[in-house]
């Protein structure tokens, strides 16, 4: 299991910043794959939806490094999948912690880009910096993502008997998703009035057929 998760972390990091771009780094994809591996797909999937909506409100353009939602999704999915959250309050505390750690994860990608620049400057006309970049980016994923998981497990162990309120992680995930959906709705570019009419139509139709 650990090996499979490490392999997933390698490809997620690679897909996110360096190569492939086949979307295995999207939070909902990560959450579903981790859910499959840990046999807890029903819960990880909803956590994936929550982090995906959060991550979508950000566009990868030019040299800008988008927020590391893959890191948050990976760590949360592994913890949820392996049943580390015995209460909603612990789930919320770790989620908050990961939103802060996300910036540290972003910094590691900045370091990778700086290393890439140094390698390029030194071996300007060689092709091997491409392979080097692929390997180092994948390793970044393995190191950073697993460090995130182990750190959060330590925090959870430290929390121990405190923060034991609530037991319905799915419901809380859905309600926070609803809040972030407001952001997503504003993010989608379409004429405002029509946008809200179409949205309400979807909401109404969904209500009828669900």
């Amino acid at each position, binding site marked *: 299991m650990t090996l499979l998760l490490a392999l997933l972390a390698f490809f997620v990091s690679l897909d996110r910043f360096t190569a492939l*771009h086949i979307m295995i780094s999207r939070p909902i994809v990560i959450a579903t794959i981790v859910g499959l591996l840990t046999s807890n797909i029903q819960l990880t999937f909803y956590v994936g939806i929550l982090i995906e909506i959060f991550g979508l409100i950000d566009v990868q353009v030019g040299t800008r490094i988008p927020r590391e939602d893959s890191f948050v999704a990976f760590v949360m999915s592994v913890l949820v999948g392996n049943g580390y959250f015995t209460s909603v309050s612990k789930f919320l505390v770790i989620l908050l912690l990961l939103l802060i750690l996300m910036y540290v994860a972003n910094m590691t990608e900045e370091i990778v880009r700086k290393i890439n620049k140094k390698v*390029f400057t030194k071996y300007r006309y060689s092709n091997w910096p491409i392979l080097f970049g692929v390997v180092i980016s994948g390793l970044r994923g393995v190191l950073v993502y697993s460090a995130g998981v182990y750190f959060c497990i330590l925090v959870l162990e430290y929390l121990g008997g405190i923060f034991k309120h609530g037991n319905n992680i799915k419901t809380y995930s859905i309600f926070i998703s609803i809040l972030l959906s407001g952001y997503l709705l504003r993010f989608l570019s379409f004429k405002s009035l029509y946008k809200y009419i179409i949205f309400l*139509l979807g909401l109404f139709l*969904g209500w009828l057929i669900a």
Partner: protein
Amino acid sequence: MANRLNRFFLLLRSLFYTGNFNIENMQGTGFRWLVDYVGKKGHYEISDELLKKEGEYFNTHPFFITFILGVWFKELNTEEGPDYWKKVYSSAFAAVGDSFFWHSFKVFCFLIMAIIGIYSPVVGLIMYLLIYNGFHFYLLFAGFKIGYKYGKNLITWFNLFRVNQWGQIFDAVSVFLLGLLLSFLIKSSGIVTYWHYFLGASLLLLGLFFAKTLNVVLAFMFAIFGFGVLLLLRGL
């Protein structure tokens, strides 16, 4: 060069050409690597000097890289030279790609996956990867042939499909799907009381209200705090 097998290998390579991405030459190293590969396979005469120059600053959306390569080789021996069109098309495709794939198509595919996934996450996952990468791989596979055929006039091919409207069309569909998803989510979780409906509607309105003024990370953090307090006071 245009045979299927070579284009398949070009597709595989183009998945990795951004390997050395850095802030100095961006994707330049990878572009030179691909030019070298196509040049050798197609027996094009490319001077060492020109090849070295291709390692300089270059950046585009990765899904359109083979189109740019096609144009580059078509314009190789013309008066303007290949780099003139490389620069123009790399900016233009960055605009199309960022705005369509990163902004719109990603949201559309997520919503499809999420709606299907409520009933079967695995089927949702397969659908997501198939829809997204079906489009992605088609562009990478067909790009060189189309780019080479049209050369500097490549934009006329894209204009056949009204490329600047893709984003808006998919965003409109996504808006509808987002409404659908929220209804499905609420019903799937067995939320039935008026208190829940009131809370859900208020949260959505709050999100809409603060979307342009409050950073989403901060909003997420406030929401976690808020739900933490709610949890202590009465729970959901």
